[in-house]
C-alpha cells in the first residue's frame, strides 16, 4: 500500500502541498518572521525583499507571517467544520440506512435535502446575521452545510453493505442495528469518508476565505486569507503582491487537498485505479 501510495503522483504532490500549509500553520505557533499584531505603517505596501520575502500589506505587516497565521484560521475552521459534518452526518446516514424506507429515513433524508437545497453562503449569511460575524459562526455555518454531504454518502454506501452476507450473518447472530452499523458498516465506509473528508476540507477552506472576503468570517485582527484578499482589492494596481500571495496560498492549498483526495480514492478503490492506468 505504501509503495502504491508513493507511485501515485497526485497523492504525493497533494500531500506535499497540504503538508507545507499545515506545517506553516504549526510553525506559526512558535515562530513567525514578524509579529502580525503590531503594525508598521511607515513600511506599508513594500514589495518583496529580503526582510519581507512576500512584501508587506497596507499596514506594514509582513505578508508571509500573515499567510502563516492565516493558515491557522483556515485550517482550524475547515477541520472543525468537517468534524461537525462527519460527527452529525455519519450517524444520521447510518441510522437512515439501518431503517431504510421508514419514517425515520424519510425525516432524515428530507431534512438533509432541505439543508442541501440552500446555498452554503446563504446559510452562513443567515447565521452571521443573527449571531454576528465571527470565526466560530463561520465554522458552524460551514459545518451545517457539511452534514448532508456526509449523511448522503454514508447512507448510500451503507445501503449496499446491508445486503451483504456478513451483515446477514450478523443479523442472524442476533446483533442489533446499532451494533451492526458500528461493527460492520462503519469500518467499511471509512475509506469513502476519508476521501470525502479531504474534499470537504478543501471546500471548507474556500468557504472560509469567501466568508472572510465578504466580512462574515474571522474578524480583525485575526489574519485570514479571505480578508487579506478583500483588503488588497482597492490596492491591486498599487501593490499587486498583496493580492497575489494570499490568492496563491488559497489556490495551492485547495489544489493540494483535491489532488490528495483524488489520490486517496485511487488508492482505496483499486478498480478505478486500474481503469485509469
Amino acid at each position: 500500500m505504501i509503495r502504491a501510495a508513493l507511485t501515485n503522483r497526485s497523492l504525493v504532490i497533494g500531500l506535499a502541498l497540504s503538508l507545507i500549509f499545515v506545517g506553516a500553520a504549526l510553525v506559526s505557533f512558535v515562530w513567525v518572521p514578524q509579529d502580525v499584531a503590531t503594525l508598521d505603517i511607515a513600511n506599508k505596501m513594500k514589495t518583496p525583499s529580503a526582510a519581507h520575502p512576500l512584501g508587506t500589506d497596507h499596514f506594514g505587516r509582513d505578508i508571509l507571517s500573515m499567510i502563516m497565521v492565516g493558515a491557522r484560521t483556515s485550517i482550524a475552521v475547515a477541520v472543525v467544520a468537517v468534524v461537525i459534518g462527519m460527527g452529525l452526518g455519519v450517524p444520521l446516514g447510518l441510522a437512515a440506512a439501518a431503517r431504510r424506507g421508514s419514517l425515520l429515513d424519510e425525516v432524515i433524508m428530507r431534512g438533509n435535502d432541505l439543508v442541501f437545497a440552500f446555498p452554503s453562503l446563504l446559510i452562513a449569511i443567515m447565521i452571521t446575521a443573527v449571531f454576528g460575524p465571527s470565526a466560530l459562526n463561520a465554522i458552524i455555518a460551514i459545518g451545517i452545510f457539511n452534514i448532508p454531504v456526509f449523511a448522503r454518502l454514508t447512507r448510500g454506501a451503507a445501503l449496499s453493505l446491508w445486503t451483504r452476507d456478513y451483515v446477514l450473518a450478523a443479523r442472524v447472530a442476533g446483533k442489533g442495528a446499532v451494533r451492526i452499523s458500528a461493527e460492520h458498516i462503519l469500518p467499511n465506509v471509512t475509506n469513502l469518508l476519508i476521501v470525502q473528508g479531504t474534499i470537504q476540507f478543501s471546500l471548507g477552506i474556500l468557504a472560509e476565505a469567501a466568508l472572510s472576503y465578504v466580512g462574515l468570517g474571522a474578524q480583525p485582527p485575526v489574519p485570514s486569507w479571505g480578508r487579506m484578499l478583500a483588503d488588497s482589492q482597492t490596492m491591486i494596481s498599487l501593490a499587486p503582491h498583496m493580492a497575489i500571495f494570499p490568492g496563491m496560498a488559497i489556490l495551492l492549498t485547495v489544489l493540494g487537498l483535491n489532488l490528495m483526495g483524488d489520490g486517496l480514492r485511487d488508492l482505496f478503490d483499486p478498480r478505478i485505479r486500474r481503469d485509469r492506468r
Partner: protein
Amino acid sequence: MTYLNFTRGMVSALALVAAMTGTVGMAQAKTDIVVGMQLEPPHLDPTSAAAGAIDSVLYANVFEGLTRFGPDGSVNPGLAASWDISADGTVYTFKLHDGVTFHDGTTMDAEDVKFSLDRARAEDSVNAQKGLFAGITDVTVIDPLTVQVTLGAPNGSFLFNMAWGDAVIVAPESIENIKTNPVGTGAFKFDNWVQGDRIDIVKNPDYWGEPAKLDRATFKFISDPTAAFAAVMAEDVHAFAGFPAPENLPQFDADPRFQVLIGSTEGETILSTNNKQAPFDNIKVREALAHAIDRQAIIDGAMFGYGTPIGTHFAPHNPDYVDLTGNSAYDPEKAKALLAEAGFPDGFTTTLKLPPPSYARRGGEIIAAQLRAVGIETEISNLEWAQWLEQVFTGKDFGLTIVSHTEPMDIGIYANPDYYFQYDSAEFQKIMTDLTAATDPAARSALLKQAQEKISLDYVNGYLFQLAALSVANAKVMGLWKNAPTQATDLTAVYWAD
C-alpha cells in the same frame, strides 16, 4: 415680404443654423454629467431625516433656504434677497426674491417660508436638526415678499442655521409626496429616481437666479470602493464626490484625464467613547485612551496621508479653531501609567464597533493595535450603517466606535447628555447656552475656544483627524466644490470646458 414672413424666414434660417451647428456639435461642450457617490439617500426629504446623502443630492440643486452656504462655508443670501435685524437681535425681517416659483409652477412667497419654519419647529416635527429652529417664537407674514421671524433670545448663528439643508423652504402643496417627488425652487428639477441605482435631475428653465449651465445631471450610487475606482477609470462617471479609496488618488492624479480635488470637510473623525459605560466613565481612562492613540499613523495608514490631526471637536479651517492636539499627544508610557492610576494596571477589554467607511474599518484595526500596546484589548465588530445606527447611535450599546461627524459647527452636540456618547457636563452646557445668547463676535469666539478646550481636557472622545474632502473628476469638469463646508454636491455652477 411682410413683417410676418420676414420673421418666419429668420426663424427657419436660425433653425437651419442651429441644426448645422448641432451636427458639428462634437466640438461643443457637454451639457450633462454623471456624478458618482457612495451612499444612496433613504428618501428625498431633507427636512425629515439626518441622512447626509439626501443633502448630497438635493442641497442647492433642488432645494434652497433663506440663506445658503457658499463653497468656502460662508453664509450667503438664498431665497432671501436681504434682511434687517432689529437692534436687540431678536427680530429678523427677510425680504424675499420676487418671481420665485416652485418646480410645480406655484409661487414661492412668505406663506411658504412661514409654513416651512412652522413645520420644522412644530411639536410633532420630525426634523433631524430641530435645535436649529428652537429659538424661534414667531413667524409672521408681513406681505407676500416679506417675512418676520422673532426669536426668544438673540442668536448669533441664526442666519447660519437657516443655511442648513434641514432648513430649506418647501411648499404645502407638495409636502405630501416630498419623500419620492421633491419639489423645490432650485436651478434643477427632480426628474427620476431608480432606487438602488441613480437619481436624475434636469435644468429648471424658469429658475429665478443664475440658471444652471448643465441641462441634466445624474447621481449614480456606487457603494463598493473597487467598483467606484473602475467606474471613474472607465469614465462611466464624470465626477465622484467623496471618493472612498484614498489609496487610488495618486493614480488619478498622474492620469491627465482626471483632476483630483483635495479640500476640507466639516467631518471631525473621532474615536467616540461611551462616557456612561465603565470604565470610560473614569476620566483617567479616557485620558489614557487619548495618549495611546498615534493620530499620524492612523492618517497615514487609513487615509494614506489625507487628513489633518485634530485635538478637539472643531474644524481646523475655522478661524476660531484652537490646536489642542498637544493635550493628547501620543505617549503610550503615560497612557499605561494613567491606566494603572485608574485601577487598570493590566488593562481591560472593550468593544470597538465600526461602520463601513474605510476611515473606520482601517482606522479601527490601527487603533486596536495601538490600544493593545497599552494593554486595552478590543473586540472589533464591523457593522453596516443600519446596524450601527441601531446599536451604537440609538441603542448606545458600545464601548468605542469610530465615526466622522460631518455636520458644520456641531460642537453643540456635546451639550446634549442623551447624545450617543453621553457626555454630561453642566459646565459645558452653560458655555453653549452663553454662546447661543452671545451676538458679539469677540465674545462668541472666546466661548467657542473655551468649549473646545473643555471637551479636549475632559477627553470626551478620542479626537483623530479632520476628514479630507476627496473628489475625483474628469479634467474638463469645472465649478465643482473643492471643500465640503456642508453635505452638498452643488452642481449649479458646474460646466464642461471645451
